[in-house]
């Protein structure tokens, strides 16, 4: 497996003056989802977030909820998604995003080991709080998997420091109080949360939740190291854009970020 490791790769990109673009899609949301992963990499993604569908995603808005339903109806399981991911050649790192119950059921060591085996070097578990992450954190570290933590506009400076100290790969700054989904405008909370965490960490800081189009991606990356784009891409895929449409959308984000970010 020649994929670079998540944190190493992102730090290198940032050191080279690059802004980070991290698109998200749901594993198994269409027959050609692996082709989409390849297309995103070719269109300029720095890493790709892969959602593993869960029945009750409390951090996600309607678009990603729908993608989870579609993926589950297509028979997607954590194992089916991971083994498919292990089968493709890719030169950027992968990070899995899902909910803690799937990991708890599989077993921490088994799940972390499986991520490493298939070449996934990062993991985001939004409902695993800082206070409850010790067991998973140990297993992930042993397997060489980065656990990316979230920091929110509501997070106190003291908590933010603890989160920055424990996060690996990058720091996921939640760009607004709310669930994932497209929004008409970037929230003023993006600047607040980025300014809060930047002095606390050398990790790349990527902003997600509510980043919907090229202009917003450029706006966000003028403040932070990178942007995570989920619902806007997932919606296009649900509407049948296919790998070509996905690549076209990500290229437009890439271009906006590189020009204005």
């Amino acid at each position, binding site marked *: 497996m020649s994929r670079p490791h998540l944190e190493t790769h992102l730090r290198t990109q940032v050191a080279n003056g690059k802004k980070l673009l991290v698109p998200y899609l749901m594993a198994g949301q269409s027959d050609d989802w692996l082709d989409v992963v390849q297309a995103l990499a070719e269109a300029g993604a720095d890493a790709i977030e892969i959602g593993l569908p*869960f*029945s*009750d*995603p*409390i*951090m*996600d*808005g*309607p678009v990603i*909820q729908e993608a989870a*339903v579609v993926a*589950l109806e297509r028979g997607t*399981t*954590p*194992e089916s998604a991971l083994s498919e991911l292990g089968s493709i050649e890719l030169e950027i790192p992968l990070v899995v995003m899902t*909910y*803690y*119950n*799937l*990991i*708890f*059921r*599989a077993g921490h060591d088994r799940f972390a080991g499986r991520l490493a085996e298939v070449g996934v070097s990062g993991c985001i578990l*939004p*409902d*695993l*709080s*800082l*206070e*409850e992450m010790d067991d998973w954190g140990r297993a992930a570290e042993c397997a060489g998997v980065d656990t990316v*933590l*979230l*920091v*929110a*506009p*509501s*997070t*106190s400076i003291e*908590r933010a420091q603890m*989160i920055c100290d424990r996060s690996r790969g990058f720091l996921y700054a*939640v760009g607004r*109080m*709310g*669930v994932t989904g497209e929004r008409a405008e970037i929230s003023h909370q993006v600047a607040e949360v980025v300014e809060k965490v930047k002095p606390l960490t050398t990790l790349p800081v990527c902003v997600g939740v509510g980043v919907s189009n090229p202009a917003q991606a450029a706006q966000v990356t003028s403040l932070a190291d990178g942007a995570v784009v989920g619902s806007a891409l997932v919606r296009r895929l649900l509407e049948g854009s296919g790998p070509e449409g996905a690549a076209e959308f990500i290229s437009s984000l890439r271009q906006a970020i590189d020009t204005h970010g």
Partner: protein
Amino acid sequence: MTAPTESMGSPSSEGWFGDFGGRFVPEPLMPACLELEAAFTEAWADPAFHQEFESVLSSFGGRPTPVTECHRLSEELGIRLLLKREDLAHTGSHKINNVIGQALLTKRMGKTKMIAETGAGQHGVASATAAALLGLECTVYMGEVDTKRQALNVFRMELLGAKVHPVTSGSKTLKDAVGEAMRTWVAEVDDTHYCLGSVMGPHPFPWMVREFQSILGREARGQSEKILGDVPDFVVACVGGGSNAAGIFSGFANSRSQLIGVEALGGAAIASGVPGVLHGMMSQLLQDEEGQINEAHSISAGLDYPGIGPEHAHLAATGRATYSTAGDDEVLDALQRLSQMEGIIPALEPAHALAWILKEAGRAIPTGSTVLLNMSGRGDKDVAQVREILQAKGLYQ
């Protein structure tokens, strides 16, 4: 003045009851959970808050509710059966205790809005009631399937000035209503309190809701000792999330009474579930091999939840309480027998607990035993559904 319930103990500082509980929420919600924990801890140590809570429950909520001895049914069963009459509390169930507590806390935190989830509509109606009383804005999240099953309760909530938001995600029932209320709470946490309806969710909810419900357990302890000269041999309650059971168990946990929780057969998180994390808590959950949550199915929308409060999972693990099940048919029988022999139409939820008693009298419940059943709600909300089912079975024309 009420004292915090020590008999069932406080959870750990992170909200654990043994291996269950905790706080599994996305980071945007953590500060809100911490704020709520601090506010409740402070309020619950304040005699003035207790006084206000008890005063509202007395002058508005109809407390204390009586304990009724069932003479005819007792004679037939060969036991002595008492009912704690939460069906006589305002809005027709024990849910009023919790919502008054949380609505008072909402005001104390300086928030102006409450959101709530509801299944059958009891907690939604209670929340709308408390919000109207205290001048709070209220939005209730209810699965679209349930808004149709319980259309009259939707109207009652709206009549009380609340907004009802139909939830169209997932199975469109209680589990999805909880999820949607949590998602909304993330976005509106500045001025909004999430008034969760049961002893579930992230810390401090399981502990806080039990404390607000413990008033019924304390009353029942005194009342049953007065009638029986002793605690009852058995204390029996139905369990969905488990708030009425937590309330009554807390009054007897430090006594010799056997505590029995009765779940719906199609939603039996203790009997059929395994440990997992949902809606902010580690508990026993109905789920598949991969960890996807299964839907619960029963005649009672109020028990259609795939999990159970974490303290119940802990009480089951330690053996302090025992959990059993009742199926739809025996529940219908129990509802009719109590109606015809004692003049009390129970809600479908406590009819589960009664069904267990009818089944086990003379077996697990030795003849001559004393039994206290928590009659958690009245059956008015269910009579249309019960009539339809009896008609479909050819038992009523």
